[in-house]
Structure formats: C-alpha cells, structure tokens
C-alpha cells in the first residue's frame, strides 16, 4: 500500500544541510516545485473530525479523506464550490457517505492551506524511482487575518520497494524527523481559533464523587451555559437549524437540573432562574417547530399520493415565510436587554463562591450520593409510569412517561463521569430506545394537531386552497397510521428497558446503601 507518512521536522532544521546529507546517501532527482491549495471543511460540532475524516476542496474537486492523509481520498466529486449542505452536493458516493454523518448540519470553512511542494524522487542504480520525499511548506489561514506556517516532510513508499522506504525512514529518524501524530485541523488550531472537538452536543462534565453537590451542580450548569453561548452566533446568522436545537437542549437541561437537583441552591435563586429559563425555552418554541416541519418537507411530500404532491406547497411556502419572521425575532431576542441580563446574572451566580447557606441543605452532600439517589428515584418513577400503561391507556400517560424518561436521561448525562463508561452507555442506549419510541409518538401527535390548526388558513381560499386542505387531510391520515404503529411497538420496547438485567444494573450503580440509620437532614433529594 502506498500509504504516505508525514514527518515533523526537528526544531533546528537546516534544509540545505538536510538535502546535502540526503543526496550523499541516495541518488535523487529533483522535481519542479508544485503549488497546491486546499480549503478544509467541517461542521460546527466536528462531525467529520470525530469520525476521523477530512473534507477538502481543491480546485474543482471536493474530497473526503482519512484524517491522517489527505492524499488518499475515500471518494471525490466535482463541484466548483463547496455547498453549505450535503443535500446540495451532486448525487454520488461522496454525498451518500457525507449525508448520514453531517445530516442537516452546515459545512463550515475551517481554514485554507496553501502549499509549496518540493518533491524528490529517490532512485536506484537504474534511475528507477523507489520512493518519493516531499517537503511541504504550508501556509494556513483562517477566517480572520491569522496566518500560520507549518513545514512537514512526506515519505511515500512505492510498492515492492519496502526496504528502500524503511531505509529512508531510518535516515529521517536519524535526522530528527518524527512521524507526525496531529492532523491538519489540529495544526491549524492557531488560525481557526478552535481546537478540534472543542464543541460537542454530548455533555462531558468531569465530576468527582466526593465533591460537594453545590459545586458539581455549578460545574454542570457552567458547561450548559457555555453551550448556549457557543450557539448564539449560529442562531443569529441562521447558519443551520442545529445551533438553535443545541441551544434549546442546553436550556432544557438547565431547567431540568434546576428542578431536579433539589436543595443544592437557595430556594429564592432556584425559583428565579427556573422562571428565567422557562422564558428562554419558550422564546424559540415556534421557531423550532417550524424548523422541524421544514426539515421534514421531503418526507411529507413522500407521504402524499402523487396527485396531491403540489397541494402541500402553499403550506410550506407559508411556513418558510413564518420561519423567516421567527428567526429574526429570535435573533433580536438574543440581543435584547432581558436576555443579556438573564445570562449575565446567571453567569455571576454560577461563578460566585460556593455557599453554605442554610437555605441550601444539600449543597454540601457528596455528589456521588446525590447523583445515585436522584437517578435511582427517577428510574423507579419511569418503571412505575411505564408499567401502568396498557393498550387502553390514554395518550396522556405516554406523554407523562416521556417526561419522566427525559428527566432520567438528563441526570444520567450530568453525572455520567462518576460511573463506569461502558455501563452508563448501555443504560443510556436502552433509555434512548424507549425515548425514541415515545418521542416519535409525541411528534406525530403534535404534528397532527398543528397540521389541522393550519387548515383554517387555507380553507377560506378557493381553488388551490382546497387542494391544500385535502393534502393536509391526507397527511394527518398517514401520520395516524404511523402513530398506531409506534404505539403498538411500545410494550416490547418498554419491556426491554424494564428487564431484570437493566434493573439490576441500575440498582448496582445507583441504589443507596440500605440505610442503617436514617439521615433526616439529607432527605428530599
């Protein structure tokens, strides 16, 4: 395999001296210098980097390559410019590979690399090439005026000449060159001002079991606050829908933490901020609803019979107009004095020194104890709510169970660092299966209601309006069919979650030790 190796140069690299020594050891042929330019892309949440991939645009070609070697693309396609979304790529392998990874996220330009490449062929006595060496002087530039230059040496072996490549590797090692471990996005961090992987939707909060709960809670909430902040710009600039989505998740997690971590903060503050975050959540409810409809436009179209396909267009045109309005409203809200004040106060509160005030009875409880008790209690609440559900139960019971699951999920995520990773992952996966079922059911339920509420708007108009109304009716029918399917899958999925193995694991990880003596002052969590 002609895998190339990239080497970092030693600190005191003397090019002339290096070339001289190389020429003394190997017959060489110098190639003409080549210039090379490429722009690298990824999503805001580093979906490609996390998967060990690079996406780079070079002249008219967009290439998906392994992180370590941009010269061995996995697939390529010809486009003049990199589109913002995967769906705008020409049909083909690259789009097929990219779509499930980046989904609806926008491709953002990370940095540009302009290189000069000086290639040397290493020859044998017949003047046959046995390996290539190339010195790449790269100038990396980011969005601002930041520049960073980085020089590396590449070694490309040739099939059937492994011994020569090995000898060159040894020569390079002796010259102080080391195989480079870092990828271009990592090298470019000074110009992109972003460390790869610095943002993730996954919550990662390092906590200690012995640390006081008040402190741990603040750590969790600070992470959530920074997630909100990180997404503000993307929402304002309307880059893709997921900035808002992630922002809302951070708000919801914050609200859930404030509600569930009882007694770690003084009552008055808890109440005030719960109200504030409830306001922040509501701010974007409608915008998110519209986003969801528009994201599913194609699926809706596919649900409709051929004859009605066009009928739904007026509805989506209307939704697009509404969305634009809502987006602007949200962008304004993010700059409003009320919003800024809330975040400022919240930040001040989170950064204030830990208090031991009597109004926060659980602030000093070890985090491990609080987390275990809370999670175990929520788990049992989920079991209880789920067990009561039969085929005849009203939809509202599924809704209630969904909320219980969400609380449990958030708790598991907040405190995951306290428990063995594999076991937590297993539990989260099981829970996610259940949540997906319940979430889908809720989605369909809400969508039916919303679709019906739009009927009014179109029923007044003659002609085209009628067709739209019929299309909406047809959609509501299709959604009903799916809803029933989802509901009928519920018992099986729940039974899996409520299995003996899962219960045992929950008990092992979270159940408080059988109390020898009751601890009256630590009740209530």
């Amino acid at each position, binding site marked *: *395999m*002609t895998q190339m190796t990239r080497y970092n140069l030693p600190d005191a690299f003397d090019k002339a001296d290096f070339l001289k020594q190389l020429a003394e050891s190997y017959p060489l042929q110098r*190639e*003409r210098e*080549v210039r*090379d330019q490429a722009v690298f892309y990824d999503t805001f949440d580093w979906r490609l980097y996390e998967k060990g991939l690079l996406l780079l645009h*070079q*002249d*008219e*070609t967009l*290439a998906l*390559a*392994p992180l370590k070697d941009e*010269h*061995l*693309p*996995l*697939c*390529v396609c*010809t486009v003049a410019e990199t589109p913002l979304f995967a769906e705008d790529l020409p049909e083909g*392998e690259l789009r097929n590979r990219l779509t499930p990874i980046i989904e609806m996220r926008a491709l953002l330009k990370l940095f540009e690399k302009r290189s000069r*490449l000086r*290639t040397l*062929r290493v020859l*044998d006595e*017949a*003047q*046959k*090439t046995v390996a*290539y060496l*190339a010195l790449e002087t790269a100038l990396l530039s980011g969005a601002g005026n930041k520049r960073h230059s980085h020089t590396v040496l*590449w070694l*490309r072996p*040739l*099939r*059937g*000449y492994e011994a020569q490549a090995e000898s060159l590797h040894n020569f390079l090692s002796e010259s102080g060159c080391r195989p480079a471990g870092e990828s271009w996005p990592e090298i470019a961090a000074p110009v992109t001002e972003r460390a790869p992987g610095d943002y993730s939707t996954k919550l990662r909060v390092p906590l200690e079991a012995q640390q006081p709960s008040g402190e741990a809670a603040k750590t969790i909430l600070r992470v959530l606050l920074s997630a909100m902040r990180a997404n503000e710009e993307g929402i304002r600039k309307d880059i893709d829908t997921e900035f808002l989505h992630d922002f809302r998740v951070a708000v919801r997690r914050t609200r859930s933490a404030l509600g569930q971590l009882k007694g770690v903060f003084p009552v008055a503050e808890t109440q005030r901020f719960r109200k504030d975050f409830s306001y922040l959540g509501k701010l974007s409810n409608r915008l998110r609803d519209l986003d969801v409809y528009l994201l599913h436009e194609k699926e809706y179209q596919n649900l409709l019979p051929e004859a009605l396909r066009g009928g739904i267009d007026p509805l989506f045109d209307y939704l697009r107009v509404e969305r634009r309005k809502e987006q602007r409203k949200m962008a304004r809200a993010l700059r409003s004095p009320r919003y800024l004040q809330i975040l400022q106060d919240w930040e001040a509160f989170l950064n204030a020194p830990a208090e031991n005030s009597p109004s926060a009875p659980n602030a000093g409880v070890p985090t491990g104890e609080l987390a275990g008790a809370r999670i175990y209690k929520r788990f049992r609440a989920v079991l209880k709510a789920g067990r009561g559900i039969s085929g005849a139960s009203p939809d509202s019971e599924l809704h209630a169970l969904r909320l219980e699951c969400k609380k449990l999920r958030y708790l598991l995520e907040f405190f995951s660092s306290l428990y063995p990773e594999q076991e937590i992952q297993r539990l989260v996966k099981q829970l996610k299966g259940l949540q997906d079922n319940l979430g889908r059911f809720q989605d369909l339920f809400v969508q039916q209601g919303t679709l019906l509420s739009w009927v009014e708007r179109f029923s007044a108009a003659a002609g085209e309006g009628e067709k739209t109304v019929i299309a909406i009716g047809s959609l509501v029918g299709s959604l009903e069919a799916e809803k029933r399917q989802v509901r009928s899958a519920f018992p099986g999925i729940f039974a899996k979650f409520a299995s003996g193995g899962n219960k045992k694991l929950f008990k092992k990880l979270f159940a408080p030790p059988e109390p020898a003596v009751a601890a009256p002052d630590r009740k209530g969590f």
Partner: protein
Amino acid sequence: MLRRTAKVFETFEVYGGWQPSCYGMFIEQKHICNTTLIILASPPRAGTGRVDKEEPVKIIAVYHFKGGVGKTATAVNLAYLAAQSGARTLICDLDPQGSASFYFRVKAEFVAGAKGLLKGGGNLEKSLKGTDYQRLDLLPADFSFRNLDRKLDGLDSPKTRLGKVLGSLRDEYEYIILDCPPNITIAAENVFHAADFLLVPIIPTTLAVRSFAQLLLFFKKKRYDHKKIFAFYSMVESRKLLHRESMAFVESRFKRVLHTRIPYAAEIERMGMHRQPVPAFSPNSPAAAAYRSLWEEVEKIIKT
C-alpha cells in the same frame, strides 16, 4: 468516477514538455485545461487498498507467436496510457527476456520464479512493483519463466492456471495487460484462456500476414474464442506499396482490425534508451499520438 472526467489526452499538447509523472508524489492525476493546471485528487482508492469499481478487471494480452513485431512496445505504451486515463493498471511481463521490465527500469526478477508465479496468491502480491507512473504496477519477468511450459505440464489444469492466478488481483486493478513471449505453447494457451482481449500486432508484410492466418487457424482448430482477437498494424511504413497491399488483403478477410496504425518510428526505437514509454518522454510525437489513438480504440471496444 473521477477518471471518467479526466481528459488527459486531449489536453496534452497544451503544455509542451509536461510529463505527468513528474508530479507523481502527490497527485494521482493532472488535468490541463487551456493554460490552467487543475489538480484532481487521486482516484477513489479506498483505504483498504482496493479500488472502488463497478467493472470486473479486464485482461488484455498483447500476443503473437511471431517475434519482434512490436508486442512489448505496445504493451508498455498501452499500460502507461491506461494508468494515465485514471485506471489502476498492472502490466505483467511474461517474457523471460524481461523487455517490459527493462523499459520500466525494474530488474527482471520474480523472486518466487515460474513455480511461484503459478502458485499465485502471496507470491504474486509480493513481487508486484510500483512503476514511476501513478496507478501503474508491474509484475516483473524472471528468467525462469522460460520453463513455464514444463511447470504447467505437471499441474492438474495446465491451461487455465494463469487465469486463476491473475484472478486474485481482480479487485485491485481495472486493467491487466500481458506482454507475451513469442511462442504458441501451453503457456500461450493459458493466455488465450485468461485474456478477455487479444491484441495482435501485424507488420504488413506477406510473411507476417501468413503468420496471422496461422494463428486464426490455430484458434479455430482448438476452438478458442476467435472474437477475442483484435489485430492492428505495427511498424507501418505507408510509403511502401507492399505494406498498403498487405493491409488491404487482411482487411478483406478479417473484420476485427483496429483503425489505428502504429507507424514505424524512431521514437519507438528510442524507448530502450530512455527506458520510458513514448508518451512519457515524447508526448507530442506522432508515435505517442498513435498509441493514444490505439488505446482509445481499445478502451472503446472494452466498454461496449
């Protein structure tokens, strides 16, 4: 697939003495449009080292039992052009003289010998050599290949062995080009089995035409698929009346004669001095153009 978009041939001339191989280090393919040099990334070669391709490998043998008719010159140049067009290509030097290996500056030495070649598998993979040109690998010859017939004789399926052995490389290459020695032994019959296409160079002289007729007769007698055979004229000197007459004679009796005629050219003789394919050291020469045209014709036949 990328290589479908590359038009290296049409744009070659724009850039004078440009040699695609020079940039081999980084760029699998260069694409020249007017005066801009557009660098295309390498073809979709998955990290596993396998080619992503829809088509099964095509084996093209350049064969004639007559010696010195331009088989090796053709195999070398076509292999080079196939690789240039974006296809992963392997040229197999089956001739113990090792001329094709020589042209690619590779020592004619197949470590496992004739026996190893017929065993195939790891022996084959270990012996492959990367040439100086992107996407083009070579299976070097070995002096022991002169004993191929004897070695084949002892095997249970002596006439289909080569096809089976090459089959193990089917995922790695789009084209396998065989440079065959001038004989008509069991080894040659292996080639008749293994190859999807047989390119037969004919020098347009009376005796050469007669040998070609003998080859066709042999195919008929042994019931090989003569539709595999495509003839083309080699070392043509169109000033010679004899050449013109001979060509007319063949065409009146045999349908599958390619249009391209490889002229008798000093450039082709000079390959031995340069030890490079003609289009690599003299891209603008008529000889290079002739090979390009020949390859285009062959490619078209393969794809239809």
